[in-house]
């Protein structure tokens, strides 16, 4: 006989869990008691939201399932933003929550919240476990569902008596079988042949690659296909890193803050090979003018994404890597020199740019960091201008080196996600590129990084504004800066109060030295960059416009 809590912990161990992020409370006391001696490291965060983001950052950096744990009611509710973030970006996490004892369920008991109901629209699946004998099966299924098919968050809600009850545990063996869940892996052979025929016939093809490439580990196959057919590749925010930034076929990011040449190429292409993407509105702009001349091949593991926003000519459901391998197996060589030359000319004529006039500008800081780390390391961002500048100016060379909240756009994501990324790949330098607004949304995690000596470096691009909203107000609301100005904060002093080192930087001269000091430090570090306050992110496609109608800002 074993307690439910013990069965849970053993189930986690069978799934290979080494680290979980959590926060204790009343109804999870039995689980915490079991954790006290378990060979699983528990990182105590300062707010449950950070536990969910850390699990998510761990998952994205490692490709494995991240785990977070919270108590019932407020603890569980604090996970919600993190679960929604993981859901929108297809990050595999398992969220464990305590629940009031089964005899009090539905009674409005102390710290009761219907967390499986609350999270129903933002989880891939959820369980409310009412019998401890179900726990081993549920844990195994939850991990299986989280990591397979289109990955995503799974919630397991565990009433207190289920944790304490002593039962006979019979862990299931063999592969997980769920008759309602059988994700497609292999692509349909005839569709693959049709796609290849279109690829071979196309004169102006473009690959539009997204997070699905990273999730399925298909970067190598993608590169091989692009090179064999000489196809330029543009990536979504989530797909950054699937092709090295300095590869001649790389067009960088497309969409609202994409490069001009990527958006031009999309608008002019005659064949769009879309892989692991979902035609999000931030990518397509006005969807009817997105790739208006192109036949579209769409490869995705989630059939519901195909044709959801844009009709496609050749749908292929399955794992991106398996499908690209099948395509490479029979693909001939191809080359379209005129098209490549045209794209290269756009690249030359319309590069990303910023003003270099001796003022401290964020793009310069990110370019310096990219130089210093040689594009290596794990770069996490918050949301807003900091995120877009990093996506544009950091030269990513590997998959899973860029971690950001794309779909939900969660401010406060970066810092805790960076903590998670550190535990996934402890040997690597991890930077969180933050704004002063975002950093203050989960700034309490300075306590976590200090206590656990987590060597995450935070580079705050401090402009004392909620910068991206201010930019929209400047461009579309007549510079009426309604509630977007933030009072000055001395982040170095805040860091010091937690026992974390920091440096304030006011001019471009100090940037390299400060970044090096942070990189060389073996603990956490905060860099407070006082940047130009009203710097904008350009190019920019106004909401609802066609993606080739970009505001490019001042040309230097």
């Amino acid at each position, binding site marked *: 006989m074993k307690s439910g809590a013990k069965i849970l912990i053993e189930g986690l161990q069978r799934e290979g869990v080494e680290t979980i992020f959590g926060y204790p409370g009343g109804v999870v006391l039995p689980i915490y008691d079991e954790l006290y001696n378990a060979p699983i490291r528990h990182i105590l965060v300062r707010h449950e939201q950070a536990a969910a983001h850390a699990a998510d950052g761990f998952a994205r950096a490692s490709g494995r399932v991240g785990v977070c744990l919270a108590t019932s009611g407020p603890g569980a509710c604090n996970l919600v933003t993190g679960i929604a973030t993981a859901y929108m970006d297809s990050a595999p996490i398992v969220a464990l929550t305590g629940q009031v004892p089964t005899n009090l369920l539905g009674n409005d008991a102390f710290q009761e919240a219907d967390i499986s109901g609350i999270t*129903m629209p933002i989880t891939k699946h959820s369980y*409310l476990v009412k019998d401890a004998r179900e726990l081993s099966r549920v844990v195994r299924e939850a991990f299986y*569902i989280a990591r397979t098919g289109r990955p995503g968050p799974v919630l397991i809600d565990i009433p207190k008596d289920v944790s304490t009850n002593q039962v006979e545990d019979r862990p299931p063996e063999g592969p997980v079988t769920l008759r*309602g869940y059988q994700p497609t892996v292999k692509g349909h052979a005839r569709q693959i042949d049709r796609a290849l025929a279109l690829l071979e016939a196309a004169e102006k093809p473009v690959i539009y690659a997204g997070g699905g490439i990273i999730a399925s580990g298909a970067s190598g196959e993608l590169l091989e296909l692009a090179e064999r057919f000489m196809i330029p590749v543009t990536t979504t925010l989530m797909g950054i890193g699937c092709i090295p930034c300095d590869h001649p076929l790389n067009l960088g990011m497309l969409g609202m803050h994409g490069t001009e040449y990527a958006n031009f190429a999309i608008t002019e292409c005659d064949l769009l090979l879309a892989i692991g993407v979902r035609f999000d509105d931030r990518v397509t702009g006005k969807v009817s003018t997105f790739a208006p001349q192109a036949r579209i091949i769409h490869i995705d593991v989630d*059939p*519901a994404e195909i044709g959801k926003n844009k009709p496609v000519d050749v749908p292929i459901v399955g794992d991106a890597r398996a499908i690209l391998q099948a395509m490479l197996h029979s693909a001939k060589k191809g080359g379209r020199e005129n098209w490549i030359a045209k794209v290269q000319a756009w690249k030359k004529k319309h590069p990303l740019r910023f003003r270099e006039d001796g003022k401290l500008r964020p793009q310069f800081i990110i370019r310096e960091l990219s130089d210093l780390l040689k594009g290596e390391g794990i770069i996490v961002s918050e949301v807003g201008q900091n995120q877009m500048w990093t996506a544009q100016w950091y030269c990513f060379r590997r998959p899973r080196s860029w971690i950001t909240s794309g779909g939900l756009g969660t401010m406060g994501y970066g810092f805790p996600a960076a903590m998670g990324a550190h535990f996934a790949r402890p040997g690597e330098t991890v930077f969180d590129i933050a704004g002063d607004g975002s950093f203050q949304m989960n700034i309490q995690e300075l306590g976590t990084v200090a206590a656990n000596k987590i060597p995450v470096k935070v580079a705050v691009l401090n402009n004392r504004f909620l910068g991206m909203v201010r930019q929209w107000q400047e461009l579309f609301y007549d510079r009426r800066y309604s509630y977007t100005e933030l009072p000055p904060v001395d982040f170095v002093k805040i860091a010091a109060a937690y026992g974390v080192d920091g440096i304030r930087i006011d001019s471009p001269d100090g940037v390299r030295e400060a970044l090096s000091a942070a990189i060389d430090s073996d603990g956490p570090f905060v860099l407070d960059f006082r940047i130009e306050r009203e710097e904008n992110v350009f190019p920019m496609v106004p909401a609802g416009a066609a993606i080739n109608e970009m505001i490019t800002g001042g040309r230097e």
Partner: protein
Amino acid sequence: MKPHTLSVLVENRPGVLSRVSGLFTRRGFNIESLAVGTCEEPDLSRMTIVVIGDDAQVEQVIKQLNKLIDVVKVSDITENETVDRELALIKVTAEAGSGRAEVMQLADIFRAQIVDVGAKSVVLEVTGGSTKIDALENLLRQHGVKELVRTGKISMLRGAKTVKPSK
């Protein structure tokens, strides 16, 4: 925009109905009717869902339903030959001597059963397709419908074909 009839097999577990109905709310799909109950397999339930939308919307509904782990099978049986039934209970004002005979005559024509008789009212039970029930309801309104309750539509393929979990 036209009604589509979906026959859906789901795991017979707590929360399945709210997963399905929550999906419709969240994605902005319109349910015209939903009927659910046990079926020939003890651990499955069968839902008949009538959803209004164009073909692309209904395709999205089906794909999203299929993503639910507890949904085992979704079939759009709109274009198939099917047997469709609804059940209605209708409480009609019918005092002895004034109109009751006429109500009973209508019941007879529509092959409805009189399942309860009171001093001032009768309750009719009628089954059939929705147009038949609509027609009876309209005729009975002249007598005064005090209360009406209808189930959603349930449907089954004609012939030997079935909607079964794919294996």
